[in-house]
């Protein structure tokens, strides 16, 4: 009898173990390759990780430190490790495409987020969630043209070479041309996406004899530098200010009447769309292969609906029902616009 008892207990335990292991195989191991240590990227990864882990997946994050070779190596490491899915937040379109090709050859689905592959490799990634950077610039350009016709513009641009600053610039130029307000960009230079350079470049612009009345910084960090430079020169209030990304600090500038508008590009919402795409893929459901992040123009009039960057605030907004994020409601993008390497001053 004891032997039967033991066999029965053993079979029971085996069944429980089998059930457990079946449950584990449903969960996926995801390798997340981050472009570099930046708050935008960190927020993307952190929210994705939270959502994925809540859904029972495991997520390992690797950082490429903005190095194309390290990015490729990180993807290769994940392939060697045999992860089920790779999410790539690439800082370089070409190396990102190469990495995507390696993953595809290894039979591992790879999703791009907050980044685009090179135009020739557009079909390689399994899915893409990206910003519509050209449209971001165009939205601001059209607003400036309509509301500040004839005014000259000084631009604080991001880092050249990634493609993002170039696309925003292309969109901005198109926007002011579309608005037909006769605006001209008289000064433009890179302020490296950061506050320190935003301060220095704005100081230099203010010292220039070129006349301008509008300042457009492509993100809030550079705008923070610009505002400080204007404040120190006693010029705050004499310029119409615009920025991009729609971070919370920008909301307070608009409430205080310092800045006129920004275009939202919340990493939280982008990460959420990215997670929904990955989940749909795991579940074998059809999904739009490429969608854009949701990027409305924010002014003081519509700040109540602005999407937070702070993860807890974002989740609270979703939980309250004030924000509904549905991947399947987003229009599918079928092709990508091509940016031209520029970085020209004006």
């Amino acid at each position, binding site marked *: 009898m004891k032997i039967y008892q033991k066999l029965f207990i053993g079979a029971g335990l085996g069944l429980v173990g089998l059930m457990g292991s079946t449950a584990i195989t449903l969960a996926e191991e995801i390798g997340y390759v981050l472009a*570099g*240590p*930046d*708050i935008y*990227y*960190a927020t993307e990864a*952190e929210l994705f990780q939270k959502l994925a882990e809540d859904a029972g997946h495991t997520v390992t994050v690797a950082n490429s430190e903005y190095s194309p070779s390290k990015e490729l190596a990180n993807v290769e490491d994940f392939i060697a490790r045999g992860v089920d899915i790779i999410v790539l937040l690439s800082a370089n379109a070409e190396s990102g495409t190469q990495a995507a090709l390696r993953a595809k050859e290894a039979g591992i689905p790879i999703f791009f987020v907050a980044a685009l592959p090179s135009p020739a490799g557009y079909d390689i990634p399994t899915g893409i969630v990206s910003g519509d950077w050209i449209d971001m610039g165009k939205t601001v350009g059209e607003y400036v043209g309509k509301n500040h016709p004839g005014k000259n513009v000084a631009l604080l641009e991001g880092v*050249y070479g990634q493609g993002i600053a170039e696309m925003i610039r292309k969109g901005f130029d198109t926007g002011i041309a579309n608005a037909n307000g006769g605006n001209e960009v*008289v*000064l*433009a*230079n*890179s302020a490296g996406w*950061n*506050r*320190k350079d935003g*301060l*220095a*470049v704005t*100081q*230099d*612009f*203010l*010292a*220039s*004899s*070129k006349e301008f009345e509008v300042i457009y910084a492509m993100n809030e*960090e550079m705008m*923070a*530098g610009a505002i*400080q430079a204007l404040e*120190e*020169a006693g010029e705050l209030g004499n310029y119409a200010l615009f920025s991009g990304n729609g971070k919370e600090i920008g909301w307070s500038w608009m409430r205080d009447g310092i800045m006129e508008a920004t275009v939202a590009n919340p990493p939280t919402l982008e990460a959420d769309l990215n997670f929904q795409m990955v989940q749909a893929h795991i579940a074998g459901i059809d999904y739009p292969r490429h969608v854009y992040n949701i990027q409305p123009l924010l002014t003081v009039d519509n700040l109540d609906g602005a999407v937070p960057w702070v993860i807890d605030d974002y989740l609270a907004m979703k939980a309250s029902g004030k924000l509904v994020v549905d991947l399947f409601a987003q229009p599918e993008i079928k092709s990508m616009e091509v940016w031209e390497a520029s*970085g*020209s*001053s*004006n």
Partner: protein
Amino acid sequence: MLNKSNDLNEKQPSKNDQTGVIGAQQFRQFLRNRNTPLLIGLLIYIAIIALIEPAFLSAYNIRNVMLQVSVAGIITIGMTLMIIAGQIDLSVGFLVGLTACIMAALLKAGVPEIIVAFSGLFICISSQMVTGLVVARLKLEPFIVTLGMMAIYRGIALLLTRGAEIPLDRKFEFLGRSRFFEIPTPVFIFIGLMILFAFILSNTVFGKQLFAVGENNEAAYLAGINVSKFKIKVYALHGLLAGIAALILMSRIGVGSPNMASGLELETIAAAVVGGAALAGGRGSIFGSFLGVVFLGIISNSMNIIGVSTFWQYIMLGAVVIGAVIIGGLNKDK
């Protein structure tokens, strides 16, 4: 031959100079000075830019340039000391960033400003002393050790902040944003430190020992200098100056951020080299480094003012660095 300082006032005029043709003698001496080509080059560059854009020489812009170069200038003083002593430091940019992050976090936690300031100086001095200790006692290459330290500082800063900025919420503004007689405080500190260290290098035993250690470690040892201890002292001074720079930079831009000073290490090495410092050690001057840091700062400022693309700024900066090294080499051969 211990003191190889190249300051314009490095040679005292002889009695004959004073009684004879003083003007001609001094002019010849001026032409022979290693910093003269750089000074002339700088003046020509300023004249050309001023012709293109008269606003370049406005009081606002001069103050602007001096303010923009003050943080890099302070670190350049330390870097010049390091280079003269035959050392190099690739970690200083991220040390400044890390220190600013820690200080910003302390300020956010409500720690009094004075304690925060001393903590920042302590972090920089002690970190550099540890680096100096490793380099000097274990006789390791400073290039490799400071490269390693750079990664460590960066990693700690990113761990602390996740890459985000820590805002100061308008605390600690005095050092970076105040002015005296319309001149920003950081400019006073920068100029004051330049004068102090130019004096130290030209007129003190420490200055003579610095050149001796950089020129030849063994000869310096035989001359009675405790080379290891002396190098640690140089690292500590460099750390002190990095700490002052971190305080000013954090106060100036109102945040602590891991990447806020990245690239400063190369900028300051370039400024010192443009100013005549030899990476092999034993040669350099504070006045030369002053000219170097101002020249590099003016290039970026002038290009922004006249509206030239960043790409051209890189090319121009590279050309100035290489040109200065070539001229420095030719001068050395004379």
